[in-house]
């Protein structure tokens, strides 16, 4: 507990003495295994990538790599919108919804996690149990009731309504963050308390910086939610007007059975483009994953 300050960030590397030869062989085996696994994981993505540049609009049965390469699919997405295909508009809609959802949800989740993990008050166990029960309810079923409720307050076919739907109940998703906060030594909070900090200061100055990796996780997952969700969007944005759609519904409608022959490669291009903001965000924040939390910051 006291002397981990020299540990590097690479987690639980287990070091053994001697046998460097054996170790090297083990390393090679592991790398080969990882390589094979990575290939399995990346083949569909590769297919997405190359088909996005395919000059053949439909889905090829015989060729993995396209016969002719082109940028026309992207050109069509952004500069030639038609009555159905309005990709730029969808992209903007989704980005706005995802940003606001991400901000609201992350704040909610952190607030709930801190109070349930680090504070002790009467009714705490009750709240934990109650929220567990609520989380059990079949999401898709309550989705329909949510739709009716939103309709009765006039928020269907509105992007504000989408943000409300995605983020309002997010406080229930605190378990992972709470699990992480539970592992932060209470001694650090005690120390701050002795120095006269109130709970607000402990939350913002002590806990939040310590929880950086899990905050990154929360931010990414709440941001990913609206990008990948399409059932809620389908229920809520049902006006049939293409300009209201998010990328998810737009792309789904593009691949309707009658349209798949002319839209498949454009669909791949669209799927590729929406992954970009997520990939960038991840690249910026990835380093936080690797940083250990208590290692190096506890003074024992």
């Amino acid at each position: 507990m006291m002397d981990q300050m020299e540990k590097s960030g690479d987690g639980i590397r287990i070091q053994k003495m001697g046998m460097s030869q054996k170790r090297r062989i083990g390393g090679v085996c592991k790398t080969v295994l990882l390589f094979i696994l990575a290939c399995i994981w990346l083949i569909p993505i590769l297919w997405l990538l190359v088909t996005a540049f395919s000059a053949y609009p439909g889905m090829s049965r015989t060729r993995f790599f396209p016969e002719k390469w082109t940028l026309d699919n992207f050109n069509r997405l952004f500069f030639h919108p038609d009555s159905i295909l309005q990709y730029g508009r969808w992209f903007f809609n989704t980005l706005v919804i995802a940003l606001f959802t991400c901000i609201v949800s992350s704040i909610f989740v952190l607030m709930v996690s801190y109070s349930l993990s680090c504070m002790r008050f009467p009714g705490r166990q009750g709240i934990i149990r109650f929220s567990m029960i609520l989380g059990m309810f079949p999401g898709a079923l309550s989705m329909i009731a949510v739709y009716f409720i939103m309709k009765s307050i006039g928020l269907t076919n509105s992007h504000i309504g989408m943000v409300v739907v995605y983020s309002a109940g997010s406080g229930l998703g605190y378990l992972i963050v709470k699990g992480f906060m539970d592992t932060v030594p209470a001694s650090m909070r005690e120390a701050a308390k002795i120095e006269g900090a109130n709970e607000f200061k402990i939350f913002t100055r002590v806990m939040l910086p310590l929880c950086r990796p899990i905050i990154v996780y929360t931010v990414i997952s709440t941001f990913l939610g609206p990008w990948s969700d399409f059932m809620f969007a389908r229920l809520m944005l049902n006006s049939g007007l293409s300009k209201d759609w998010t990328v998810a519904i737009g792309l789904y409608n593009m691949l309707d059975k009658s349209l798949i022959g002319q839209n498949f490669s454009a669909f791949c291009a669209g799927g590729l483009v929406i992954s970009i903001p997520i990939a960038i965000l991840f690249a910026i924040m990835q380093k936080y994953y690797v940083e250990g939390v208590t290692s190096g910051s506890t003074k024992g």
Partner: protein
Amino acid sequence: MATEKPKQKKSFAQTAFARYFIDFGEAIAKGDWAVKASLGVMGMGFFKRKQIAKGVLVTLVQLAYLLCFILFSIPNLAKFSTLGTVQYQDPKINPLTFEVEQFPYDNSFLILIYGIASLFLLFVFLLFYVHNVKQAYAVMCDAQNGKHVNSFKEDLQQMLGKKFHVTLLSIPTVGVVLMNILPLLVLIAIAFTNYDKNHMPPGTLFTWVGFENFTDLFGGKLSLTFGYAFKKVLAWTLTWAFLATFTCFIGGILLALLINSEGVKLPKMWRTLFVIAIAVPQFVTLILVRNFFADQGIFNQICQNLGILDLCKGLGLVNKNATFIPFLTDKNWTKVMIILINIWVGIPYQMLIATGVLMNAPKDQLESARIDGANKWKIFWKIIIPYILVVQGPALITDFVRNINNFNVIYLLTQDVYITQDAGLYKSNAKEVDLLVTWLFRLTQEEQNYKMASVIGIIVFVISVVFTLISYSRLMKGGREEDYQI
């Protein structure tokens, strides 16, 4: 609440419940005129102790609620017992004025929602009301005993200190009420109505039918198909949830350990490679994969070229005269494929979480185990797995429940592709590969059978609640969360 007394250790829930009312009675009986007046004008108790701002605030809330009660709650609650009686009529042109007239009518669904919202508001207000009287009494006690009475500023400061949890939890709670509790109540209510495609507001009214839907499911005329489908779908849902959770959880830990283990260079790069697969939104990858494995898709062509198709025919896995492997169109193939594809979708997520958790692993324990000469296998089973289970245990249960409700994977892979051959399932809109949620969704979207969907939803809900509470309390027994907080 505010009065401090030694706690008795009887049956906790019972005592707490009884105490709630005893405290309230005591506050009224022993309170002075100001406390008693706060039963009428809620701010009175605070005005007496010079807590003007607090008093004004509380009274304003009271006025706002009364206004809302008169204008909103009373009209809706009056019709709540029948859910409306005035049938909708098409607008008519008045022969005298030639204007289109819409007669007022009742919308059963709005009455149901607003009625439930009114009842909920009433409940919350009553809690607030009782709490307020007790507070007024507590302040009175403090003042009489010569204790310090908080000023408004001090009250506010407490919201960032001792009572910070109130500040933190209040807004998320409102959100949860709006998005989770109210829909839940609405759906429970619908299970006791005849809301289906023959009773669709605003065109037609619907009304309460008691337990009729439940008896229909378990013994009535519908039971033949609905009961049959329910059993099948439930069995597959549980199998799927268990397999999906287990495979992804273990797989994620193993992958995280593999990437972080010694001898593997560039762990960051490997992690990124796997995460690329989840950077693409699920509905893109799933639709892509579904086309990849389509009957006339590219992977079937590859299998044919490599002779895998013939191999499967030889092993009896595929029909003799088939020209393709029915990856997503045969019930057994589809079930296996769904689980495999879900592993593909789920492991990168679990790997990220496991990596984060493993960073925090108790290094002193690992250290001493290593000094004691434990091998890697032992360390994995005796230290790492117990540690992860304590930290991730609650999340594992949420994962299980999330998989029970895993709409995306099932729906996107099988909708419009998989067609059931089972007449019993077909009649009740179910498929072999349906989860309860996808079935419910289809029941509502394709059949508008809201009443049966709600009934099934309630049954599932009860099953999963019981299951979760048992396993959760077992995991949390003895407050093991503090073991690692040190």
